């Protein structure tokens, strides 16, 4: 009996000890303390902020997988505790977070000075809902045309300026062993569907979404791109696929590809990735689908920082989000492959990248040309718009289904999901 009692007491003691350890005591000095959740690429800037704030604000950093942002906030909402003070995520995450059913996102309009919002210009439009700002844009990830000057010279190609020229140029690669890129992931949407302004998340009213894969702006995409896929001049694999990298990209066989602004430093250049030699890669303006205003770019990435409405230190949290998106440090660090959305930071970033000898031309020009010309037809929505790419659109493309079937499958899946998040769906 005694031994049993001792054992039970010991067990309880272990439990209590663990509880004691884990309850985060508020810092005794009254110093604000904030918790930042960011994905791996944003960790260097968060760490720098932690250093700069030493003695003023206790900054705690936790890495998250970007895809987990919504679920992790939902878990915290259900538990009514455990929210981070600021979080990095996709613009669509903020659409979810600012919804009254979620309520995580704080209105930043008053917490952040007007000067900062002015500095963003159009760059922060993803965060604007009914005249209020609910997040700060980290970077603009508009698509441009990346091309290899060495291969272009070797084959005597000229840089395409329209999608038709892009297709014609790609066709000339047939039989040469060179490729016009791999599009079997989210890139197919960003490079072609979004830039073509195919309505897939078109908010025609507050809670009405138009998902219309039959629109001519959607059908023209398959019409133009399917022949390239059939001819094998573009790849059905993902641009991150180990096989594609080994067989094509790392062999310096990509003659051109449409890709977002961060691809140069992040995908094309690194040794562990495509590893394309210095002095070959240049960027040109995003090829236009049509004339006049029919020249939008798509966007792949372009994350935002959202601030918690539950934060005990709302000002410190908002300041952190401001620093993360606007600081000179972020703009000039070699670990920042992304095109800053904040104007002044962007100037510094330009100074660095435009002089980078790795590139064969000033890649900044093309990025800047498309940065404020991203299609605004599809808006951040509360249903898992991006997450469904992997399950349907790119899965179909990888499996060799036709592009129009892939789009229909995708559209069908989001048409089914949108009502669950409280949207009315229009399909025509």
């Amino acid at each position, binding site marked *: 009996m005694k031994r049993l009692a001792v054992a039970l007491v010991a067990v309880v003691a272990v439990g209590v000890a663990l509880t004691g350890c884990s309850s985060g005591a508020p810092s005794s000095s009254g110093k604000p303390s904030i918790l930042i959740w960011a994905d791996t690429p944003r960790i260097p800037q968060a760490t720098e902020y932690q250093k700069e704030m030493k003695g003023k604000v206790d900054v705690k950093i936790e890495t998250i997988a970007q895809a987990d942002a919504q*679920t992790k906030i939902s878990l915290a909402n259900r538990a009514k505790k455990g929210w981070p003070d600021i979080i990095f995520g996709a613009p669509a995450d903020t659409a979810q977070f600012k919804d009254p059913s979620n309520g995580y996102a704080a209105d930043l309009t008053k917490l952040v000075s007007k000067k900062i919002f002015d500095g963003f210009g159009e760059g922060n439009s993803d965060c604007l809902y009914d005249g209020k700002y609910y997040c700060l844009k980290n970077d603009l990830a508009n698509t441009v045309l990346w091309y290899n000057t060495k291969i272009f010279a070797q084959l005597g190609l000229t840089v395409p300026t329209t999608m038709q020229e892009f297709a014609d140029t790609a066709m000339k690669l047939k039989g040469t062993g060179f490729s016009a890129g791999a599009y079997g992931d989210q890139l197919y949407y960003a490079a072609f569907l979004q830039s073509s302004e195919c309505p897939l998340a078109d908010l025609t009213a507050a809670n009405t979404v138009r998902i219309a894969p039959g629109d001519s702006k959607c059908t023209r995409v398959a019409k133009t791109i399917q022949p390239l896929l059939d001819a094998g001049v573009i790849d059905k694999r993902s641009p991150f696929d180990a*096989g594609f990298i080994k067989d094509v990209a790392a062999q310096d066989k990509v003659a051109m590809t449409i890709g977002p602004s961060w691809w140069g430093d992040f995908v094309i250049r690194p040794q562990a990735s495509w590893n394309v030699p210095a002095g070959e890669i240049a960027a040109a303006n995003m090829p236009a689908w049509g004339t006049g205003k029919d020249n939008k770019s798509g966007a792949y990435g372009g994350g935002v920082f959202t601030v918690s409405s539950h934060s005990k230190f709302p000002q410190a949290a908002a300041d952190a989000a401001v620093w993360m998106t606007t600081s000179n440090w972020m703009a000039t660090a070699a670990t920042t492959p992304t095109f800053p959305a904040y104007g002044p930071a962007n100037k510094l970033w330009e100074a660095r990248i435009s002089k980078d000898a790795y590139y064969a031309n000033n890649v900044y020009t093309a990025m800047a040309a498309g940065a404020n010309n991203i299609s605004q037809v599809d808006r951040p929505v509360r249903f898992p718009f991006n997450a469904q790419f992997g399950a349907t659109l790119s*899965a179909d493309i990888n499996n060799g289904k036709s592009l129009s079937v892939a789009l229909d499958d995708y559209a069908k899946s989001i*048409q089914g999901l949108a009502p*669950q998040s409280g949207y009315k769906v229009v399909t025509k």
Partner: protein
Amino acid sequence: MARSRSSRRSLLAGSIMFAPYLILLLLFGIWPIIQATITSIGPSIVNPAGGLQNFADVVADVRFLPALMNVVVFLLLYVPIMIIVVSVMSLLLDTVQGRWNLPLRLTYIVPASMTGATAVLIWYFMLEPSLSPYQSALHALGITQGNQIWRQGGLAWIFVAMAFFVGAGNWIVVQYGSLQSISEDVLEAARIDGANAWQIGWRIKLPLIRKYLVYMGILVFAAGLQVFVEPQLISGSVYTGIAKDWSLNQLSYDLAFQSNNLAGSAALSLMLLVVCIIAAIVVIFRTDFFEGTGVGKK
């Protein structure tokens, strides 16, 4: 009189001894089921009125049918493969007594240590033709690209492979243990009757361990029905989102924490739970596995 006092004391002591477990049972066995039942008929984001409509809504969800199909295909592959391979391997193991027996058993349980993320990492490397030690075998099957395997039709096989290697070794050792407990007299009698090793295995040993295999089948089925970790992890890797909402359990998780529909999630959990409970009741009352334990069929 004395007897009843001692029996009352026994009752008191028994209750005290049973209490700690009973508390855990009530808290983490019964309460969640009640909780799920209440939640499942509550108001949901798509159905503010609540009620049984939540169940219909889940079934009508665009993700439900594909996930159900995936799980059915997974189970149709996984359960038979498990039962067949485990019984064959344990029967074979039982025929080779001697010093190699133990080392073989030890090698079989090695993969059991590689679960979850470890299994996903390993199978990524085993199945990526450019990195795999089985490269030539994959090429012989006409597989030269990772995405020929990592695709809708292939996923069920991949998850079967992952789950199989994690579970099979332990079960082989366990079923081998069952075979070891067969009395030598029975086997000797069969040998005298002229039965060879094959006949003994098929006609004598297998029927004797049949109920353990049925029990294993039910456990494997119940666990397979709830598959979650592997598809969830692979969706966060190279093939981003490839197995999103692939299994019913993932759908339940996403309903709760992505679609903000806790009622729907609870409804789906309950449906899965009912299937598991039916399986449990079948094994308890319709098989002879628990015979003699005071609960099984009389």
